[in-house]
């Protein structure tokens, strides 16, 4: 836990960026995110990545109103946004940007808030770049529809979306290249 303003400091953002880089390089790894007391780790993730150059959709209204001006990001509909803040317990009601064949990076990154990345009813096994063999994960608070929707979104590689699952204090990444099997 950090004092109120620390997630907006350069030093904490550097450390949280490295946690995100580790997470996306190693799908299945659960990496701690430095965050402030009483504020979700997802806000610290957004603070690390966003500025006025990018847009954010928050269809569930999860973000504190006071955090919007600090993030500086413009608001957008989920269909248009660079980043989408989502609630894991509820299946997606939108079609995110998947990028294009020449520019697959022009796709959305979804930050999905879940209850736990350490234990839970949803057991998945991961394979693909960054995974040494396979990686097993247990997640609580992720509606199973997310995984089937993700299948539709990532089936046209290199088009796709990248998922950052975030609980109270940590992140786990599912980049578009990861093959996910429910076990």
């Amino acid at each position, binding site marked *: 836990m950090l004092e109120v303003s620390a997630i907006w400091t*350069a030093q904490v953002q550097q450390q949280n960026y490295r946690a*995100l880089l580790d997470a996306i390089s190693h799908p299945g790894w659960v990496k701690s995110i430095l965050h402030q007391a009483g504020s979700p780790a997802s806000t610290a993730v957004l603070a690390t*990545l966003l500025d006025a150059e990018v847009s954010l959709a928050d269809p569930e209204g999860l973000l504190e109103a006071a955090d919007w001006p600090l993030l500086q990001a413009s608001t957008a509909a989920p269909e248009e946004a660079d980043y989408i803040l989502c609630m894991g317990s509820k299946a997606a009601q939108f079609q995110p940007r998947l990028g294009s064949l020449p520019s697959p990076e022009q796709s959305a990154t979804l930050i999905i808030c879940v209850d736990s990345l350490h234990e839970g009813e949803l057991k998945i096994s991961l394979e693909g770049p960054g995974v040494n063999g396979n990686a097993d994960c247990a997640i609580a608070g992720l509606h199973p529809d997310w995984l089937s929707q993700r299948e539709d979104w990532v089936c046209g590689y290199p088009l796709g979306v990248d998922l950052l699952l975030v609980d109270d204090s940590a992140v786990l990444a599912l980049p*578009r290249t990861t093959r996910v099997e429910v076990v």
Partner: protein
Amino acid sequence: MSLAQQFGFLDEYAKKEIRRTSLKAVAIPGYQVPYSSREMPMGRGFGTGGLQLTLALIGEGEVLKVIDQGSDDSVNAVNLRAFIEMTCPGVGTTRVTGEADLIQSRHRIPEKPLREDQLLVLQVPYPDPLVVVEASEEKRKQLHGEADYSRLLVKLYEDIVKFDEITISHRYPTRINDHYVIDPSPIPRWDVPKLHMSKALVLLGAGREKKIYAVPPYTKAEPLAFEDKPFRVEAFLDERGRRRACARCGCDSSFLDEYVDSNSGHQVYRCSDADWCDEQLTRRSAPEVING
């Protein structure tokens, strides 16, 4: 603004953009993600792409190694290291590959296998292997997206017909995760297999061309080749077909640089990787401490 005021020289907006770009690069292995490369107090082409990545990545308490053509002591490596030391207070530096958290390099990948907790940044002058067959960037982006490398393969094959082997010595086109073909930067063929299923993340930065791309850990990296003409690394054989060894440390399993001995006028061979050579030399004088 003095250099000392801003940790990492770049402003936080520039760092955020590089960070967002690098995450996309890892998520789409081998794809060259565009970014708006900033002006640096040295000419583009002097490793600014790698330097920008390092400055966006590194934090207090981390240990950095900077190498140029295998050496920590070349002018380029010394200048880059001095710049990072000046702009990143609290960052340590080392010459020892095993001690580094982060390694920025030009032209070589260290001989010592990298670990999962290490990170390699390669400086790239020319990121796009398709430039030789397609002048239009728009068309190249489409070809990359479709993973259509037929024209590049034809070009490679012409080389074989002409010289009876693939003559590319550096920047060998390498396919990542069965899709994108990358220019792995001017590393020798010797270093290309180190990218395959590497334990360490490899990030590549091209400052002048404004591109960042990545080879994630545990990811396929396969040099383009043909069944009848497989990819081969440099053999370093002498006239009698024996593997040459380093004249300094005796190692016969490293990438060698060729020198002319100023006294005898003869050709001599030495490890290109200075830290590797030092380590082998130490081992040879104390053979009992060899441990993997």
